[in-house]
């Protein structure tokens, strides 16, 4: 219940303030934003730039990226480590919130340090009046060791965000990078 509502709530709040926020200079820690504030899933046929991001235990290579507002960027995310990692585009506050969700998914056994429990993630939780606890936010990919995943994103606003891994402990240990969207 909680996850579903907070996403909707965040989205409606974001819609309200985004109209006002267009001319506000970008800062790192926006309050109450959702991914819709800085973009949307991009169209693979419009990709203007591609980045290769390598995931290791527990850090990214590279750790800083720069794009132009209006670009559609393809991230090719490859996990060269032995642990499960995430590549998630968002602000500091979004990551903090998502860390709580990931912690819950770990406690419930949907995620392990080395992989995803696909069966559990697709379970129908409606009987327990819980939402489907899939990890299907469009601004994020979970990549198992040895795998490669792609994320295509259209950035429409100048902003400074982070790409981060919200698996418990990884962000705190420094698995986070900076992405600046310039004018």
């Amino acid at each position, binding site marked *: 219940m909680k996850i579903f509502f907070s996403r909707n709530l965040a989205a409606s709040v974001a819609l309200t303030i985004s109209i006002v926020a267009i001319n506000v200079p970008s800062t790192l820690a926006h309050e109450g934003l959702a991914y819709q504030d800085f973009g949307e899933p991009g169209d693979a046929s419009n990709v203007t730039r591609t980045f290769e991001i390598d995931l*290791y*235990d*527990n*850090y990214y290579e590279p750790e800083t990226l720069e794009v132009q507002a209006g670009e559609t960027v393809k991230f090719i995310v490859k996990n060269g480590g*032995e*642990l499960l990692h995430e590549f998630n585009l968002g602000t500091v506050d979004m990551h903090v919130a998502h860390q709580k969700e990931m912690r819950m998914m770990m406690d419930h056994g949907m995620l392990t*340090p080395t992989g995803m429990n696909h069966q559990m993630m697709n379970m129908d939780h409606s009987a327990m009046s819980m939402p489907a606890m899939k990890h299907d936010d469009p601004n994020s990919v979970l990549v198992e060791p040895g795998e490669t995943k792609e994320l295509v994103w259209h950035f429409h606003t100048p902003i400074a965000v982070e790409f981060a891994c919200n698996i*418990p*402990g*990884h962000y*705190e*240990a*420094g698995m986070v990078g900076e992405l600046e969207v310039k004018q």
Partner: protein
Amino acid sequence: MNRLIAWLAPLAIVFGSTVAAPMVAYAGSYELTIGESTINVSGSDKTALSVNGSVPGPTLRFKEGEDLTLNVTNTLDVDTSIHWHGLILPFQQDGVPGISFEGIKPDTTHTYRFPAQQTGTYWYHSHSGLQEQAGVYGAIVIEPKGREPFRFNREYVVVLSDWSDEKPEAIFANLKRQSDYYNYSQRTVFDFFRDVSLKGWKKTVADRVDWGEMRMTPTDIADVGGYTFLVNGKNPEQNWTALFEPGERVRLRFINASAMTFFDVRIPGLQMTVVQADGQNVQPVPVDEFRIAVAETYDVIVRPREEKAFTIFAENMARTGYARGSLAPRQGMSGEVPDLRESPLLTMADMSHGSMQGMDHSSMQGMDHSSMQGMDLSAAGSDPFYAPGSGLSPTAANGGKFLSYADLKAQKPLYEDREPTREIEVRLTGNMERYIWSIDGVKFSDAEPIRLKYGERVRFAFVNETMMTHPMHLHGMWSILDNGNDKWNPAMHVVSVSPGTTVHMETEVDAPGAWAFHCHLLYHMAAGMFRKVIVEGGPQSAQLNGGALDEQASL
């Protein structure tokens, strides 16, 4: 700048600086001098034993793969030694008199030579007599060639220790004469009447009789009292301070270099992410508090974002004192210092049934176990490394997460996981009243060495038949703790075993020669909780040549 320091360093050693400073490398050669110096952490000048004039001694910084030459000079009038705690090296370099070598005689310099084969935070200390208690200890940092699996902007070594104004030999004599000499919080008549009003006469009398028959008291958590607890050689008033800039990630290398003290460490207002345990990378665990046993190390990352002072608070497990330092934007600042929490009481759960072997069972018929019915076994955390209902089971002061051994998973396992080839049971035993501590009921001077074969994987079961926590340390080889994480079981060098529990660890026997194995509580080790471990076989050049070091280790 480095060259200038290289010129000044020998002068600093000669004139005995009292500031713990990083050792300067003479291209891989390090000079350590053990001697007497003055310390003032308890209100007046006392004589300590020190390394290069400071307590703790200088932090040794090595690089992974460096060929080390360590020249240790003894200016005392008794033998001394330095043991490199947690380091993998040829057994002759391990620094234990009677097992590795003959010790360092007065007015001589002994040279240790070995390569730095690993990375992380470790420490060194004397393995002669009770010199470790008197101040002969310091930190070791081995920097990796590549990058580490975590990021930080700056780092600090945080050595926690215990200082006593009493001479260590006097402390030991006191313990032998009267084992509860330092138990200042014996239960009083006031406790008796309070319990009567809470539980009634019958239960209270029965409880006192039960404990009395075991000749134990539930308040007996720490053997030694009267300590001043130090952070990097400074007492709480002296307030050792680490500087940071808000937003930085700071790495804190916690080392418990104390003789007898378990510290519960927290930084109110700041979460800590544990990234290394005993020098080995672990999958990062964010916690609010952790317990560091004697001789263990934990590396944590903190990220203070506010421009204010945070208190680094290390409360001893018995809750009779604390070590304290600060993390602050500027020197001279300090945060609020928390009050000590209530002293824990051991419970019947901490009394292992193994210890009943030697007891007169007839007197136990009348033991009133009904008071255990109401014991809330689910309370006080569910750490599987404490007996259910244990009085020592830790909880975080802020109600948050307290680190458990069960949380530690290797970031990258050191050894391939395989079935052990043999199991050895090691019973941790003791007679508190006579202050005799032993292994399998036998003290060191009466015992045979433990013999292992090169190439084995031995599974040890530590069965704690006492009511004290024992941090067991095997020299020269890793102890792979079985905490249920299979191939991710972490490699450690100290395994702390709580009362009434059995803990398993496995060792890949890959270091030929003779090694020490003992409880790292200094006075327990001195009282007999020690064994020599002989590893038979292995590469010809590295083997122990029979006879040379077969006499008893001098403790």
